[in-house]
């Protein structure tokens, strides 16, 4: 009994499935016209409607990439820094940018002179930051390589705020920078940046503003 019920239900489901698959196929509408002799003739329209799609213009206003360079952590020497960046170009002059990077500070002069003193633990030496910046293309132009090659470029200034984590503490930081962007192709750009991250530190007992200057080289792609 149960098997029969199952097969009936299955058949019904299959029929429903088939009719669902054929839901778009309606019998062609026949237009019947009377011809002068009184003989009806059948005209089947063969013209398919053409959908003209205009291709969309791709906007390439975003820039994403990575950079590498040297970061001088005040009192802790100069060390490699690795970062990633994402930028959005608002107009030919203005862009907004966010980036994050990692570095590890070295030994302070105090530690070098007195090796028994440890100012920071290993995790405290990790220097990470993120920043949100506004940039302005001050000097857009072209850079020439020999006679036959010209690359679009721009010298820009940036200003922003962010967070620096150093000595196991997050600090509010300001940053100022100047950089050059050279477009190797329309989608690949080479960046050279010098940036100062300024924050207040009291690591050595006195509150002072420390300057952490970095020089980096980066590659980005526009999309």
């Amino acid at each position, binding site marked *: 009994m149960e098997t029969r019920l199952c097969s009936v239900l299955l058949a019904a489901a299959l029929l429903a499935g088939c009719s669902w698959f054929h839901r778009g196929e309606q019998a062609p509408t026949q237009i019947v016209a009377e011809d002068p002799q009184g003989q009806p003739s059948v005209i089947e329209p063969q013209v398919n409607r053409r959908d*003209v799609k*205009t*291709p*969309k*213009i*791709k*906007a*390439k*206003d975003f820039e994403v*990439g*990575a950079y*590498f360079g040297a970061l001088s952590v005040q009192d802790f020497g100069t060390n490699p820094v690795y970062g990633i960046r994402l930028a*959005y*170009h*608002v*107009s*030919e002059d*203005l862009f*907004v940018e*966010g980036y994050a990077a990692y570095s590890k500070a070295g030994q302070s002069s105090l530690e070098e002179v007195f090796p028994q003193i440890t100012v920071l633990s290993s995790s405290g030496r990790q220097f990470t930051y993120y920043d*949100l910046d*506004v940039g302005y*293309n001050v000097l*857009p*132009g*072209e850079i020439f390589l020999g006679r036959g090659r*010209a690359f*679009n470029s721009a010298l820009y200034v940036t200003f922003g*705020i*962010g*967070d620096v984590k150093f000595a196991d*503490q*997050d*600090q*509010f930081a300001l940053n100022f920078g100047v950089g050059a962007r050279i477009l190797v192709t*329309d*989608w*690949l750009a080479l960046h050279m940046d010098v940036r100062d991250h300024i924050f207040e530190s009291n690591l050595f007992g006195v509150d002072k503003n420390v300057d952490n200057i970095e020089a980096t080289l980066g*590659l*980005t*792609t*526009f*999309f």
Partner: protein
Amino acid sequence: MRPLLALVLLLQAFHSNLAHAAERHLELVVTQPYLEMHSGPGRGFPIVYVAERDELITVLFSRTEWYKVRAPRGQEGWVRRADLALTTLTSGEPAPIPPYPEFSTHHWEVGAGYGVYNRENLVTAYGDYSLTDSIDAEFVVQQALGTLDNRYITTIGLRHTFVPEWKWFSPTAGLGAGYQYIDDKVPPAPRDKSNEMAYVSLGVRGFITRRFMWRADWRHYVVFNNLNVSEELEEWKLGFAVFF
């Protein structure tokens, strides 16, 4: 050298994937007496080619208000948005160059800024969607960096713009709810590490240029805690935003 090579290859792969997706380009007919093509996407770049009337140009992509185009004989250059908007499709219809989003009726807005939250420095970022011309839903993520603690704050709320058609200066008011997480630096530890909050806000906003705008906001928070008296906090911030 190897990481650099890997990065270039990665970027290349990333780019070629994107390029594949948009292989068909838009073709437009020059209807004005001529169309100037610059060597770069900026007002100062020299004109390197001039397309004539009735020439068919291919639009490759856009960057800010400039469009990279290719002339029939392969010359490439950048055309200003306003100039390209004067061309037509091959069918004679106007070129589908989207107009700039209107300041008073834009839909999306993304911004960031600086502020002071409970006497701590504040880094703030937000996204905003216009529900109507005057009411927006905003989502804010911010980090307050102080000497005693760091706080991570996220809020969601509604904001009303009183006169959306006032371009340069328009007052706003809002309310919403949020959540803060306290990461203490100096003992004693706070009673609650995280709290729910509600806020009211007053602010102003104005247009700067093209798609760039500024906002200033004051917020008053009520922090729901386990004490008998709710804690109250104040926040000031100034930010810049891009709208779409």
